[in-house]
């Protein structure tokens, strides 16, 4: 019986170990190495044929030089800060756009809800990359949006949206909107309508009832949605590189350039490790929110 339980628990741990911990250790090891003109492009290599001495010299060669390097060039911390800012603002905008949509879905007649849910998930049927390319077509100077605005006469000169931060915001909000809508919808949908009637009966106007009952009861959905948008948005690479301009500084882009343009694997790995450390805080907060919600329901 105990053995069975042990194996049952061992499966997810093995999974996490093989697919998360081992790659993490490899990346950490590369981050502690030095760049070299070889294949793979870093040194030292673990030479087990040299025996114990080989292992010792391997560990002796590891150092934190790359992490120190990150602090000397202001490009890196500026990129981290700019990523944080872009992620925070786009999370907030996604919430502002997503909440009313989730609310509308939850209040819609029950026979409509599966259809609406389907419409929210529908974009996932197309490749993420293609959808971002489509936005390039919409936002470019000769794009659909500018053509439409010129046609209506609202503007006389095409607006420059593509290759600016604005395009990055639009891209992130668009791409991550379903991740905001779904948890909020889940929270709102199970809310009992009689709670709002009770609030009204006790003297609330519709608006106060919304603030005092609906918002607090969808809080867990709001928090879950915000984390689900914020965490991937901070390391986002595709959207800033396709929609952003040269001025758009995001850590995902920096990481990509270090890795593929400079072929500096150790520095790229150090950037990735720091990004992970930054993300651990919101991930832990997210987990705690989920746990608290489970306890409240249990």
């Amino acid at each position, binding site marked *: 019986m105990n053995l069975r339980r042990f194996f049952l628990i061992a499966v997810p741990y093995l999974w996490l170990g093989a697919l998360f911990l081992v790659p993490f250790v490899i990346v950490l090891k590369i981050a502690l190495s030095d760049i070299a003109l070889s294949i793979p492009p870093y040194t030292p290599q673990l030479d087990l044929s040299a025996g114990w001495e080989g292992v010792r010299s391997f560990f002796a060669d590891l150092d934190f030089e790359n992490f120190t390097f990150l602090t000397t060039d202001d490009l890196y911390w500026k990129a981290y800060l700019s990523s944080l800012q872009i992620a925070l603002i786009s999370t907030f905008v996604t919430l502002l756009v997503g909440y009313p949509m989730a609310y509308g879905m939850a209040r819609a007649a029950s026979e409509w809800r599966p259809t609406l849910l389907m419409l929210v998930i529908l974009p996932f049927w197309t490749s993420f990359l293609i959808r971002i390319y489509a936005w390039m077509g919409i936002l470019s100077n000769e794009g659909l949006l500018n053509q439409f605005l010129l046609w209506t006469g609202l503007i006389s000169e095409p607006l420059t949206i593509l290759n600016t931060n604005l395009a990055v915001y639009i891209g992130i909000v668009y791409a991550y909107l379903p991740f905001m809508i779904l948890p909020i919808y889940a929270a709102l949908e199970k809310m009992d309508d*009689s709670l709002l009637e*009770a609030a009204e009966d*006790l*003297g609330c106007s519709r608006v106060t009832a919304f603030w005092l009952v609906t918002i607090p009861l969808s809080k867990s959905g709001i928090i879950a949605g915000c984390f689900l948008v914020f965490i991937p948005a901070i390391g986002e690479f595709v959207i800033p590189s396709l929609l952003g301009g040269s001025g758009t500084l995001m850590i995902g882009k920096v990481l990509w350039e270090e890795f593929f343009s400079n072929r500096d694997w150790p520095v790229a790995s150090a950037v990735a490790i720091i990004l992970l450390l930054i993300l651990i805080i919101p991930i832990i907060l997210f987990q705690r929110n989920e746990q608290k919600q489970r306890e409240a329901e249990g």
Partner: protein
Amino acid sequence: MSQTIFAPWDDPNEKPLIQFKGVTKRFGDFTAIDNLNIDIFEREFFALLGPSGCGKTTLMRMLAGFENPTSGSILLAGQDIVPVPPNKRAVNMMFQSYALFPHLSVWDNIAFGLRRGNASKDEIADRVEEMLRLTRLSKFAKRKPHQISGGQRQRVALARSLAKAPKLLLLDEPLGALDAKLRQDTQFELMDIQEKTGTTFVIVTHDQEEAMTVASRVAVMDEGRLIQVATPSVIYEAPETVYVADFIGDVNIIEGTASQSGDKVEITWAEGEMPIRGTTAKTFAPGQTCHFAIRPEKVTITTERPDSANMLQGRVIDIAYLGNLSTYHVKLPNGTMMKAQTANTRRLANRGITWEDDVWLSFTDTAGVLLER
């Protein structure tokens, strides 16, 4: 000191607190409430009783303001409340699901309505404490609704709806979610609280026993109409229609033709059977079809031929043993089934009647009621 009987509905000088005047409510083609008139008086515990879909909940939701009548007017203390939105009415409602706010503690749930008014912090705290004492919840003030039992939740819902001291409290199936034993205790608690606070209560229920226990008057509804409005004892002992007699409690209904002399009526109901003798204040035309309703507990069951105004012979088909009572299902020679109920004052082994026994059923000529329809 003579006790004054609480019966404002019999006093023509008494002004009703609530008046429904020709209220009709339609949902599309469906008429939920059909031209309904009703007077409810102050300090009354008024029960709306009926099967599901009879319109009792719609009636209550109109009082709370969640539905507006299609036509007619609803007066609260003489003032038409139809245009008043629910949050401006001096009416509070206790919801069937209790609708407690899950994110707020018991204390904050009770304070919720008070905080919407102009009361100061101290006033609110005093009132909440008072409500907690009244409903014996002081120990649970800091708990969240999911941390207390069903019975406690029910009391929180009651305390919350009473906190604003409404003129009228509406209770929608308030005890529906409680188990039988707790339900009984809570019924008496409700009556006690109603007396203490002097609030007018309107309760919606489909449980006739509950309505009979708590209410000062019961309104039996069917298909959007009021069938009879009277005190529980009148509803039980003197139902006006077969529907009411059948809906409230157990009853034997015998259909026959009447022949009246004075207040005595003889009902011919089956060939080869003695006519049933009854008493009535109504007038029946000779040969008019009538229904004779008699409660099982008013029918005596014996093995020996008794001496009574009405006697019927039959055979015991079934015995429903309820502990304190036993109900005997007796088949008469013409196939009619009659129910007779006796209190089990003796131990089971000492009782003489069992299955397949030939028995006599008897009742006095005043035991039953004669109904026209």
